């Protein structure tokens, strides 16, 4: 049997993924050029508003993808995935915060405004090092990964499963939310971190920077997709799905279930963290609300709407639901919850496999290579 290049193998039997990523690539390219090349007045121009919005959607899509990996393929319904996203976001926001320097309202070069305001005399120890982008970016992956590792290590070893695990993830994010809301935590409390000025030396107000962030988000999404795809296509992926369907049986075959779960859970958390780091500079604020259980549930809904266990379905779901909220909150501000709530009910009832279920008839098991 001849070995195919890895990338081809990854995309094998994945028309959906090819199409979704292809379309996204075209859109991102188009938006990039239309924003940078055409001047504001031109009807071909695409506003920075759209660029940012698209960037946000892409970050959300990566987050949804990471959730689909654990939910769709490992069967862990994480109701706290927002926590990993938020932690990644906070880590990167800390870097952005320290970039403000003495441009804050108090003109304090060492301390961010909210610390001056909290009467802190010096930077708390856990802020050390975040002025270095590499370190901050590493932490944006490391902290969510570590949390996932610690939480997963205990939970999987104790064989906490099913709704128990789901509710524990919820408790985790809820506890983090309450903790981050506390002003004494040193992360800005309810107001969170905001008023970022520049990133890696580029001003965040420049269109060019925003477009760059958009492209970066897209690349991160593609990379995340490829990694996920590779994992689920490997035998490890098939073991994961077997764990989803019959965890204890897998053990009798000699697989150490908790390692498999832990690996995928941590990979997913790291992906969510990266998504968070991409999200923050584009929306310009991070606040403990991202830790709220409600956000994490919404996240689950994106994936379900798109189509659980298909990866690209998660991307579609994230786009559709978020676009729907963006659209409805402006166009039908009074009734948009009816529209959104209705959408959820209708999709569940009539599209049990999510939106991708309409197109996709064949079964979701990847053939053996």
């Amino acid at each position: 049997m001849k070995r195919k290049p890895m990338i081809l193998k990854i995309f094998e039997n994945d028309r959906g993924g090819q199409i979704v990523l292809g379309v996204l690539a075209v859109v991102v390219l188009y938006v990039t050029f239309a924003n940078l090349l055409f001047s504001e007045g031109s009807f071909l121009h695409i506003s920075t508003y759209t660029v940012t919005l698209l960037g946000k959607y892409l970050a959300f899509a990566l987050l949804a993808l990471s959730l689909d990996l654990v939910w769709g393929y490992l069967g862990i319904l994480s109701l706290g995935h927002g926590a990993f996203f938020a932690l990644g976001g906070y880590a990167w926001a800390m870097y952005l915060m320290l970039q403000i320097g003495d441009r804050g309202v108090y003109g304090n070069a060492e301390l961010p405004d909210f610390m001056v305001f909290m009467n802190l005399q010096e930077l708390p120890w856990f802020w050390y090092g975040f002025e270095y982008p590499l370190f901050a970016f590493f932490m944006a992956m490391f902290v969510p990964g570590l949390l996932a590792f610690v939480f997963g290590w205990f939970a999987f070893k104790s064989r906490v499963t099913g709704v128990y695990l789901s509710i524990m993830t919820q408790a985790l994010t809820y506890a983090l939310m309450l903790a981050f809301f506390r002003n004494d935590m040193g992360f800005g409390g309810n107001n969170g971190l905001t008023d970022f000025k520049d990133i890696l030396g580029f001003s965040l107000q420049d269109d060019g920077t925003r477009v760059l962030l958009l492209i970066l988000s897209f690349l991160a999404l593609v990379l995340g997709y490829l990694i996920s795809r590779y994992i689920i296509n490997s035998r490890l992926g098939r073991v994961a799905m077997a764990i989803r369907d019959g965890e204890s049986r897998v053990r009798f075959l000699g697989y150490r279930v908790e390692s498999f779960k832990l690996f995928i859970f941590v990979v997913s958390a790291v992906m969510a963290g990266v998504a968070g780091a991409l999200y923050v500079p584009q929306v310009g604020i991070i606040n403990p609300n991202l830790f709220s259980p409600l956000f994490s549930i919404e996240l689950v809904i994106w994936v379900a709407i798109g189509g659980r266990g298909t990866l690209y379905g998660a991307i579609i779901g994230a786009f559709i639901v978020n676009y729907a909220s963006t659209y409805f909150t402006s166009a039908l501000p009074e009734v948009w919850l009816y529209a959104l709530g209705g959408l959820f009910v209708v999709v569940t009832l009539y599209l049990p496999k999510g939106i991708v279920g309409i197109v996709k008839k064949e079964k979701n098991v990847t053939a053996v290579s």
Partner: protein
Amino acid sequence: MLPLYHENEKNVGDLKQGSRILLVDGVTLSFDGFKALNNLSFSIDYGELRCIIGANGAGKSTMMDVVTGKTKPDSGEVIFGQAVNLLQMDEPAIAEVGIGRKFQKPTIFSGHTVFENLELAIKDDKRFFKTLFANLKGEQRDKIEETLELIGLQELSKKSASILSHGQKQWLEIGMLLVQDPKLLLVDEPVAGMTPSEVEKTGEILTSLSGNHSVVVVEHDMEFIRSIAKKVTVLHEGSVLAEGNMKDIQENEKVRHVYLGE
């Protein structure tokens, strides 16, 4: 709890024809006061085919649960090979050391195809980073194809296992046990729901396996037992009631009374 792989290897010791492969010694297990296993002791030799019979609820499946690490007994010892203490190991470690099991109620992965079910079971390094980069080797593929043929599911190999009928699931599970290639096979009611000729075929497979493997079969189908049995152990209320060749057992008054009838 994590086993030390190399040490186990050593502790299993040399497996020669006739050397002991499994020792169950004085195992007791109770559920809320009910003793499912009561000071149960017996041993199996390498290469042996052992039949275990006993009334419903005698503790046969529970015994297998204990050996495979699913349930921990209250007291007693279970030793694999020379000195591997199974009670200190968890399920994957026990599987790893060479014990495979077919469950009473067929349990297969309904989200996977028949082929993938076998692939998952096949003997290989099962640590997670190995599986991430694992590829089926030529001989493994052959082994699977061979087994598919043996269990009569070639045509369904690309089909989802969820559509199998009860009997087909039984066969698939037997197949999974075969590709796993364990040293000791624990087979719980393999012929339930099979047609007479299938029963016969199962018997042949199991007999041919013994020799290079040890096989422990639990069944209620006496005809089947008769056709394959050399040595039979009878369990009753959690302990061994009788042990011996088929003839002795059939003539044993107590066994007739609690089990065989007539």
